């Protein structure tokens, strides 16, 4: 099975996974010993920080921090290469911030590296400046005149200042380019360096330019990702690599409060791995299931091709549309059936049973999908409804404070309960997508048990929100208990699933489209 192959091959990266998590390790506190069954040779590799198996190490960075990271790296490399910071920045951006590769390449073939980054020739001499040149005609606007300010980089492609400005404006404002803006000259690959840019563009555009430069830094770095929440300015660093994504679900928590998956930037989808999520969403989006249903439940009129669902009665069909009479079993014309009324035996046993099998199989896979989809969709829907309740919670909390004389602190349990509910529903939702692709083995039963426990806990808690306000006060302790229980069940499920996933104990039937 191909899914197994995928799985085995990705197991090779085990050591790296451990390595990566060790790098980010703070060497404090007592550790829980991780299960030793993987048999790693060195002692420190067995030690994991006191965190859950479903959690990954990550760090959140503010724009200022990202900027200072860049400055630090530029300074460092600039010292090594003996190039000015502007040129170093271009070189680093050119090689997508891969320091080691840049230094290697630069030491190996300096001229070529400079050339390919658009820094050809020696870049030390005179700084960029505007010039007025007699007899100059701008190739872009065809303007001429002795008073025309002109500019050219060292490649010598000279244009008037207005055209240069407008060109950069288009590139920065409209096309969102920053790090790799080329000289406007035809076929010229020289990149406009930041000193030239500072000379040419207006103040308002500079901000945008620097913002875009910062963005390319995060985009280029494999271990950095922007938080996808609207208007969020933070970036998250996480060591999980693309090839590990079948074994880890790297959910990270941005400082803005948004939980998202570092692998695919979608909302938190634990415990299902990214690739399953992608497949599942596609499957749900496609109307292939409609087609599946149609093929399982209907046949086409052999004359006018109208789709017909047989909802009872005998095999003698009369098409509503074209009045064609045919046999539902063999699809043949009814009149040819002669005397074998209402019971078609015209086809030999084998082909008949094959056709039946094919139909039954199609129906079965459809039902299986619907089983999982309905539960997935149900939790999604319920989470939305719970969110409505969450919005009303605030009102409830004030009401509760007024009617029962409870303090603000004392009514916070409602808030935490609804938050727990949201989180658990989110997890539950994805357990169904996960389960759809899961190949059955002993572990899947444990998984299903965990799923069931969490689901019961969630429903129990959800139920309490329906109660009238005046009863809520008396239910506080109960509600607190149930909230804690929900959260606990969720952690157990995630922990268990993440561990099995990491250890390669699950296999998936990915061929199910």
């Amino acid at each position, binding site marked *: 099975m191909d899914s197994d192959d995928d799985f085995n091959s990705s197991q090779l990266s085990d050591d790296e996974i451990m390595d990566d998590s060790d790098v980010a390790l703070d060497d404090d506190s007592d550790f829980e010993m991780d299960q030793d069954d993987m048999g790693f040779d060195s002692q420190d590799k067995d030690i994991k920080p006191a965190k859950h198996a479903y959690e990954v190490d990550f760090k959140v960075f503010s724009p200022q921090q990202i900027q200072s990271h860049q400055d630090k790296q530029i300074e460092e490399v600039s010292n090594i290469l003996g190039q000015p910071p502007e040129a170093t920045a271009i070189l680093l951006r050119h090689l997508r911030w891969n320091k080691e590769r840049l230094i290697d390449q630069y030491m190996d073939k300096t001229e070529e590296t400079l050339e390919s980054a658009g820094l050809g020739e020696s870049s030390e001499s005179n700084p960029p400046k505007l010039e007025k040149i007699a007899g100059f005609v701008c190739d*872009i*606007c*065809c303007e001429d005149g002795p008073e025309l300010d002109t500019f050219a980089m060292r490649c010598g*492609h000279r*244009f008037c200042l207005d055209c240069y400005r407008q*060109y950069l404006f288009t590139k920065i404002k409209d096309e969102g380019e920053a790090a790799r803006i080329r000289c*406007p*000259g*035809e076929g*010229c690959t020289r990149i406009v360096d930041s000193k030239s840019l500072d000379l040419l563009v207006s103040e308002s555009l500079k901000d945008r330019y620097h913002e875009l430069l910062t963005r390319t830094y995060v985009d280029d770095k494999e271990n950095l990702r922007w938080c996808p929440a609207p208007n969020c300015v933070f970036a998250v660093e996480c060591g999980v690599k693309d090839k590990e994504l079948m074994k880890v679900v790297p959910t990270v928590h941005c400082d803005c409060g948004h939980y998202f998956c570092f692998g695919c930037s979608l909302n938190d989808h634990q415990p299902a791995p990214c690739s399953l999520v992608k497949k599942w969403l596609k499957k749900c989006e496609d109307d292939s299931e409609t087609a599946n249903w149609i093929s399982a439940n209907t046949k086409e009129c052999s004359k006018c091709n109208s789709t017909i669902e047989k909802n009872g009665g005998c095999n003698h069909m009369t098409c509503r549309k074209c009045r064609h009479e045919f046999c539902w079993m063999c699809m043949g014309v009814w009149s040819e059936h002669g005397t074998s009324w209402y019971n078609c035996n015209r086809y030999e046993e084998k082909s008949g049973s094959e056709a039946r099998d094919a139909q039954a199989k199609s129906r079965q896979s459809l039902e299986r999908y619907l089983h999982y989809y309905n539960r997935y969709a149900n939790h999604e829907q319920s989470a939305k409804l719970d969110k409505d309740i969450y919005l009303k919670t605030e009102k409830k909390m004030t009401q509760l404070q007024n009617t029962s004389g409870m303090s603000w602190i004392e009514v916070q349990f409602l808030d935490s309960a609804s938050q727990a509910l949201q989180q658990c529903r989110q997890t539950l939702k994805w357990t169904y997508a996960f389960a759809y692709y899961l190949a059955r083995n002993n572990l899947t039963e444990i998984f299903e048990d965990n799923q069931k426990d969490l689901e019961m806990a969630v429903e129990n808690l959800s139920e309490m929100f329906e109660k009238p306000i005046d009863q809520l006060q008396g239910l506080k302790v109960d509600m607190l208990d149930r909230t804690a229980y929900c959260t606990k069940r969720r952690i157990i499920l995630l922990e268990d699933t993440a561990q099995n996933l990491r250890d390669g104990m699950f296999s998936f039937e990915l061929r199910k489209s």
Partner: protein
Amino acid sequence: MALPKRIIKETERLMNEPVPGISAVPHEDNLRYFDVTIDGPSQSPYEGGLFKLELFLPDDYPMTPPKIRFLTKIYHPNIDRLGRICLDVLKSNWSPALQIRTILLSIQALLGAPNPDDPLANDVAQKWKEDQNAAIETARQWTQEHAKP
């Protein structure tokens, strides 16, 4: 909006020193809209054909490239059914120093050297790779049929 000096100069030059095998004439009521014809290059399956194109200079020309489309049906891996053209200088490699004449020359060169490895019309490109002779023959037939001068 007054026509920029650049467009006026380019138009003048296109009129006064036309490129052999290429003509570009602006509409009287819209000087940014050109009727273009290109002769099929010799030694190519498009030889003997006369291809009509439309060319439009957007407001921000020459900062953005002109919009060009074939009006004559043509069998070519880098030109699709709607006449849209896949050519680097019309997209990422556009430079404001390029001109209408240079772009049209590039298109003429594209007719002489199809590039099935960077296709726009996938079916044509596949044909081109599988059986080049047959593809060239089809291109020749289409030229005969649709690109009569």
